[in-house]
């Protein structure tokens, strides 16, 4: 019978804490870039000019259909050689996950914008608003509310996807757990603790998002996907 011993894991808690912090850092940075870039991609894709909408559509499709780990390896091992720059694991992770989540966010933005009734555009036009002003003041404020549940879901996916950075040796929570288990020869305890930490963080976030979704459903908004 195996005797569980968690003390070597807890003795290394600063490593785990730093790992969790790094995980949250990659998530937060990729999320902010991803949202901004996602909106830009969505607007390009919705553009009536084909030389804008076609390339945007292509980029979105490529990043949505290829596996994120393949993208990460490409950005970490291939891109630096191609353009002759140094790439840190953090840089590669942020670049990959920003563009990848932007591709998904773009579809959420597009769905939300398209879901707003034509009449809103016409009314704005009739009081003399331009296309941009209508988008900014009339369409987006209404669309964003409908998009919130889809955004939260994507954010949770993003946080889970960031574990992939451990494969290119960025010191996130999973990488820290791996280090500790190799050092202490306690993989069972360390990986179990790491899984529980991930569960605690992500589950809390899921519960929050479900509550918010429930609130939005009461106020009559449905999820735009």
């Amino acid at each position: 019978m195996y005797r569980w011993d968690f003390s070597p894991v807890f003795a290394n808690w600063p490593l785990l804490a730093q790992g969790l912090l790094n995980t949250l850092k990659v998530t937060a940075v990729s999320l902010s870039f991803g949202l901004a870039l996602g909106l830009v991609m969505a607007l390009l894709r919705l553009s009536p000019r084909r030389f804008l909408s076609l390339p945007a559509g292509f980029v979105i499709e490529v990043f949505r259909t290829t596996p994120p780990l393949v993208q990460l390896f490409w950005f970490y091992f291939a891109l630096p050689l191609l353009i002759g720059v140094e790439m840190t694991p953090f840089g590669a992770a942020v670049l990959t996950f920003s563009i990848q989540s932007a591709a998904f966010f773009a579809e959420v933005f597009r769905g939300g914008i398209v879901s707003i009734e034509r009449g809103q555009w016409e009314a704005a036009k009739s009081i003399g608003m331009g296309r941009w002003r209508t988008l900014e003041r009339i369409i987006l404020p209404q669309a964003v509310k409908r998009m919130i549940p889809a955004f939260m879901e994507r954010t949770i996916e993003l946080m889970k996807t960031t574990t992939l950075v451990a494969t290119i040796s960025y010191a996130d929570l999973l990488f820290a757990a791996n280090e500790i288990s190799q050092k202490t020869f306690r993989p069972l305890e360390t990986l179990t603790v790491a899984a529980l930490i991930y569960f605690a963080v992500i589950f809390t976030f899921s519960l929050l998002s479900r509550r918010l979704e429930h609130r939005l459903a009461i106020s009559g908004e449905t999820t735009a996907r």
Partner: protein
Amino acid sequence: MNHRWDFASVFANTDALLVGVAGTLRIFAICLVVGLSLGLVIGLGRHSRRPWLYFPATAFVEFFRNTPVLVQILWFYFALPILMPFSISPLAAATLGISLNSAAFSAEIYRGGIQSIERGQWDGARAIGMSWRQSMVRIILPQALKRMTPALTNRAIEIFKMSTLASAVAYTELLQQGKLIASLNFNPIEAYSAVAAIFFIILWPMVQMTYVLERRLRRDE
């Protein structure tokens, strides 16, 4: 920007890439079958009113949906063997992780699909003397499955993408073979671009198919 692309070294390793594709397809097929069928069982558990079925099924779904797949795979590979009298192969660890994760996600799809069927269908089945089991198998599931098809195809695509994580435990699949080719031929640019292209070529038609299915379903309902 003056890199000279040279795919000759990649084409010279077509055999290795094909072995990788075969490995990817194998793990995809296993996880698809195990994940989606186990998901149905757990989805029925989530739908059940009996607490001894409902609570374990819910705990399973919450746990596997709210932890990263890579953590699950590494746990099955490095941690589980300590509790077991036998060792666990990279294929087994990756399959366990991806299948259980997909089971949790598809369970919610099944549950949603089953609940979306109107009560009247249950009542109707009952009125002509069908048991719970008969109504589920003959009346509810066939209708629910149709509504769930786009969501389930999406899951299949996710499983295909997740199969790359098996490379983290050195299972021979496409990305792992790409790594090998890159390190032997010093051509990471071409090797990883080729791997990305192969994934895109395989997955793109699948994604387009889900769009068609979604559109057709919206038209039918």
